[in-house]
């Protein structure tokens, strides 16, 4: 007989084991889905997870996709660790891209070493401005940050739409919904000739290191940890709750904004309608799959990035719609939440003797 018993304490090992289990279960379920669709499961999974990263180009693409995911997830972990549910990173990314893109367009016919830093900074500030809206509404008007941040995503996308179709559209662009190309000085440098991986990855690395330091070495990190466990305790300890809410939203917004900068000044080089394939939403999965731990988030972003690539390969080789990638992302989150049950409960096998 199997009995389910409550754990006295979630062990460290199980804490990091459940994400691995979730990925494993996702592969099985994914294989099953492919089988039902009439494909050979192992072959399909190979197209999905191995073929895309088998060569140098593929690996560069992997890092290219993982960069924004990692950057945004790091920012989100500041919010999530302190009990603030910012799910509007996609909007903050978009708005960061709008602001930095706008600045880059100002310099479209100029060259100079100073341009890129200004563009990057503008993106971070854009993201912060956008993230401050749900933060301020939450602290001063008691609104629900989940709803506000989510709804603002669609607002930012519509603003972007308006700009690239209207005032900012390329005068020589035959009415395509896109802006001019940025000048080379406004572009993040490529790391290798012929590959798309760009210097934005260093921003992600910096974010990882800084966030690790803040989480585990600073007073702010300590306050976030306490607030994450119990807001009542944070209040009792006398932490300035409102200040902290605004701060973590600003950090999170800045990271999402930077991810937006990375997209438009890296691979894209201009603003158009689709600056992000929902990186801001997918990063929520990344943050939780990585257990809100900076190193965990690196691994999680790589795993989830594969689903983007795999979906594209699968579309090309197997004629499966690329939205399969989202199915896989959904399954990862689903299985992660399900296996988190193991954090608090364990199975006990009881012999039949009585």
């Amino acid at each position, binding site marked *: 007989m199997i009995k389910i018993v409550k754990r006295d*304490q979630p062990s460290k090992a199980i804490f990091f084991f459940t994400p691995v289990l979730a990925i494993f279960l996702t592969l099985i379920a994914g294989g099953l889905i492919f089988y039902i669709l009439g494909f050979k499961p192992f072959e399909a999974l190979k197209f999905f997870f191995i073929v895309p990263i088998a060569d140098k180009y593929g690996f560069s693409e992997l890092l290219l996709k993982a960069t924004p995911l990692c950057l945004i997830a790091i920012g989100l972990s500041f919010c999530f660790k302190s009990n603030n549910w910012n799910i509007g990173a996609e909007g903050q990314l978009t708005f960061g891209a709008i602001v930095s893109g706008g600045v880059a367009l100002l310099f479209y016919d100029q060259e100079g070493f100073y341009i890129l830093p200004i563009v990057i900074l503008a993106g971070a500030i854009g993201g912060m401005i956008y993230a401050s809206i749900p933060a301020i509404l939450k602290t001063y008007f008691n609104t629900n940050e989940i709803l506000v941040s989510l709804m603002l995503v669609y607002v930012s996308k519509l603003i972007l739409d308006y700009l690239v179709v209207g005032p900012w559209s390329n005068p020589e662009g035959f009415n395509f919904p896109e802006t001019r190309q940025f000048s080379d000085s406004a572009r993040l440098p490529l790391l290798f000739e012929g590959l798309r991986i760009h210097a934005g990855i260093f921003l992600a690395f910096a974010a990882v290191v800084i966030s690790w330091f803040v989480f585990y*070495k*600073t*007073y*702010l*990190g*300590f306050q976030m*940890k*306490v607030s994450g*466990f*119990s807001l*009542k*305790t944070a*209040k*009792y*300890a*006398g*932490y*300035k709750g409102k200040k902290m809410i605004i701060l973590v939203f600003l950090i999170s917004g800045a990271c999402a904004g930077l991810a937006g900068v990375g997209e438009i000044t890296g691979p894209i080089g201009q603003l158009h309608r689709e600056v992000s394939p929902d990186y801001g939403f997918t990063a929520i999965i990344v943050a939780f799959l990585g257990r809100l731990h900076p190193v965990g988030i690196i691994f999680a972003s790589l795993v989830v990035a594969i689903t983007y690539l795999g979906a594209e390969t699968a579309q090309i080789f197997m004629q499966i719609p690329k939205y399969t990638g989202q199915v896989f992302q959904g399954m990862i989150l689903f299985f992660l939440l399900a296996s988190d049950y193991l954090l608090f409960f364990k199975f006990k096998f009881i012999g039949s003797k009585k």
Partner: protein
Amino acid sequence: MNTKLKISNVTKIYPGCVANNNVSLEFNSGKIYALLGENGAGKSTLVKILSGVIIPDEGKIYLNKNILKLNSPSDAKKNDIGMVFQHFNLFETLSVFENLIIDSDEQRENLREKIDTIMKKYNFSIDLDVPVLNLSAGQKQKVEIIRCLIRSPKVLIMDEPTSVLTEQETSELFLSLKKFSEEGILIIYITHKLKEVMQLCDEVAVMRRGKLVSVSQIKNENMESLANKMVGQNLKTIKKKKENNSSEQLINITNLNFTSEDPFETNLVDINFSVNRGECLGIAGISGNGQSELFQVLSGEIISNKNSIKFNKNYIGDLNPQERREYLMAFSPEDRLEQAAIPQMAIFENVALNNFKSSNFFNNGLINENKIKEHSKKIISDFNVNTDNINLKSQFLSGGNLQKLIIGRELITSPDLLICFNPTWGLDVGAINYIHETLIKINEQNKSIILISTDTDELLKLSDKISVIHKGKLSKIMNAEEVTSEKLGILMGGGN
């Protein structure tokens, strides 16, 4: 029609606590019964057993000679037992009518007619088609009552029904209850308010620490006798030695008010008191009368008017807890596991929650872990916390050790004033004694204490002065020598 409800030898044991210890009771229709007891006496457990929410470990329940099997709340409903809980179970956004029919399979038209009849009969006037959120607390309660009446119950159980009602709503409720009783519904009324028992009930059963202490006719009781039974007879006055009477005022509260937006919180009305150096002021009261709010106002979790709190010649009413700590105040809240400490964090991290500037736990925004750990070791040895591993998660400490850690954390900064709220709640005797000795020691060092507690014995033992809080108002402050537990009991129940 006569209804007879019998509880026979009911026992319910929770880990570490016997909630109901072999309780037997008999109720007959036509009378209103009071089930009286302090918080944690076992009333709620007994009621939950009667309404099918909890299944007892032992014992049986009979209704008119039939054994009842109450495995779920719906079993209770089937057996004509109706229950009105303290906190309403209504859907705020649905209309009154929708709330009433939600768990019934009868035809809508029939029900409307039935409800109208009931309302006419008992003089209830509620618009059935407005959403419940527009109703007052008293009206919501009536909706709950109607929901029971629809099923024409034989037994109606009311759990602390007046805690959210105004005086007028309370007397309306009493009139209705008397009417129900006359019509043959057996009424069990759970409360800790003596006045209400005297006003409303015919018979009273008193519970204390899971046991049934007495069953008696109201006409043979008075408020003192009931208070005594409720609180317990052990009135031994273990008093601390009182030597010098310092007359230097340390903290002075003037005209402090707090109005809450939450209907389940208590408003504080015109609080005035002062505490001298070396003195312990005890604040007695039945829980839920504003103690938690008073604690939060004193600790700075709720900020009030700057001038309403004067501490050591400074006005500090508008400061948060951390800022108040810098003025040498310390706080030990009631809830050890959810507020005073974080069980999932290590002992030393919990120590860092009392962030006192001069203890240098955090320099320039960085955690100074060595300093915190050094400090934690000192607390553990100075306050007899039974572990030597400061990296241990505090959830592995027993309640007593955790409380020692908390009190130690608060005291190691040698504050002038310690404010504590139920410091020994749920602890074993050894730990209680240790905490009591520690508190007495603080006074001997000419430092002051405000002790908010629901434990009357504790208050009589430790306090120099005592006041009682009732419905957010403080009684006059009395010298502890002149106070007896009977007197406290009466004041706690709202008497004079």
